[in-house]
């Protein structure tokens, strides 16, 4: 057993090697150690989903995973969505549908919706709602977010 260990993770195509304490949550590692501040923290109970990232293709809340558990994984965060400065259709759709106001939940929403659209390119409204249940938004009431995701599906 050890209180810290060296880990290597690939995030948005860049490989990072760091020593981390075993107690450090993945979200703190991403935000504080790597300065990738796009993923946010909105609660301390795993409810809000603002910290959602995709680890080896699986959507997770990075506040309920230890950084040491990410050793050897490939992680996608919101900063990696737009390629060459070109917004993804989903990001553009969020803007077109006014699916964000303060923008704090948006990175997590985008990661959840991205994961959904990969497994289900043309989701129904019910499927979109179910897929976004783990992400809290306090500004929009979700309606425009749901529309934005559905629009990309169509």
């Amino acid at each position, binding site marked *: 057993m050890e209180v810290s260990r060296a880990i290597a993770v690939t995030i948005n195509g860049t490989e990072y090697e760091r020593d981390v304490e*075993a107690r450090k*949550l993945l979200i703190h590692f991403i935000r504080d150690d790597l300065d990738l501040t796009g993923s946010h923290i909105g609660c301390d109970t795993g409810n809000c989903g603002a910290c959602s990232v995709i680890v080896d293709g699986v959507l*997770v809340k990075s506040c309920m995973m230890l950084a040491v558990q990410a050793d050897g994984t490939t992680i996608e965060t919101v900063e990696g969505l737009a390629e060459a400065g070109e917004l993804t259709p989903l990001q553009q759709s969020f803007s077109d549908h006014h699916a964000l106001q303060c923008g704090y939940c948006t990175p997590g929403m985008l990661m959840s919706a991205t994961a959904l659209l990969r497994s289900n390119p043309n989701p129904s409204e019910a499927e979109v709602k179910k897929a976004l249940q*783990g992400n809290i938004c306090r500004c929009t009431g979700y309606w425009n977010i749901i529309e934005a995701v559905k629009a990309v599906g169509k």
Partner: protein
Amino acid sequence: MLLREVEYAKPSSVAEALTILAANDGARALAGGQTLINVMKARAASPDGLVDLNGLAELKGIDLGADGTLSIGPMATYTEICNSAEARARPILGEVCAQIADVQVRNRGTIGGNICANDPTNHLPPLLAAIGAQMTIAGAGGERVVPAEEFFIGVYLTAVGPGELLTRITIPAGKADGFAAVTLGADGTCIANAAASLNGSLRVAVGCVGAVPLVVHPASADDDAVREAVRGAGIDAPSDVHASSEYRSHLAEVLSVRAARQATQRAGT
């Protein structure tokens, strides 16, 4: 956020995991972490060490036996159970797992973690108690098999003792099951829940009303018999901000009846 200092080990086998657990009194197994890590954020409970079970193939897998018996590795995630063709042999499993929390939690949370945590509001303790699951527990002294009814000992306490691990969950064949819950918002935390199984005689297990699932054996599957059985069990449900003891006890009856109806209906089909 901001956990206490904790030691960490990532064993490569169940045997190694057991050795580490046996050697470290304060260490706990880390499954999906969707409960444990949150408790550690609150610094309410603080294990001295975490033995990470993620990646142990021995604890994965969902197998369907020739006799219809399901054998599920405790590290199977809710998502894996929802998507497993084998798990559909007992349809209620996937149906209930799909109601737990949200996509992210289902992607990481495990069946083993859910029942070993045994939070009173969890979905799976009453369900597994109702459908007569059997838990295989491994320790220094080898393996033993514990029926669900004896598995749950108290809040956050199960038959899995220090230095032991849950290694298998075995579920007999059957389709005539039901589940009902009143939750905090759509598919939210359970305020009260009940599971029923009518494979042979009817068995109903009620959650959220005590430290462990309350199992009753109604004389028959008709509403009154079920209601009687639950009422007769002398529930002393805890009160909290979401429900008075009286309301919880009432829900226990209503939901038991609904779960039993669903089970009966499926028995008919």
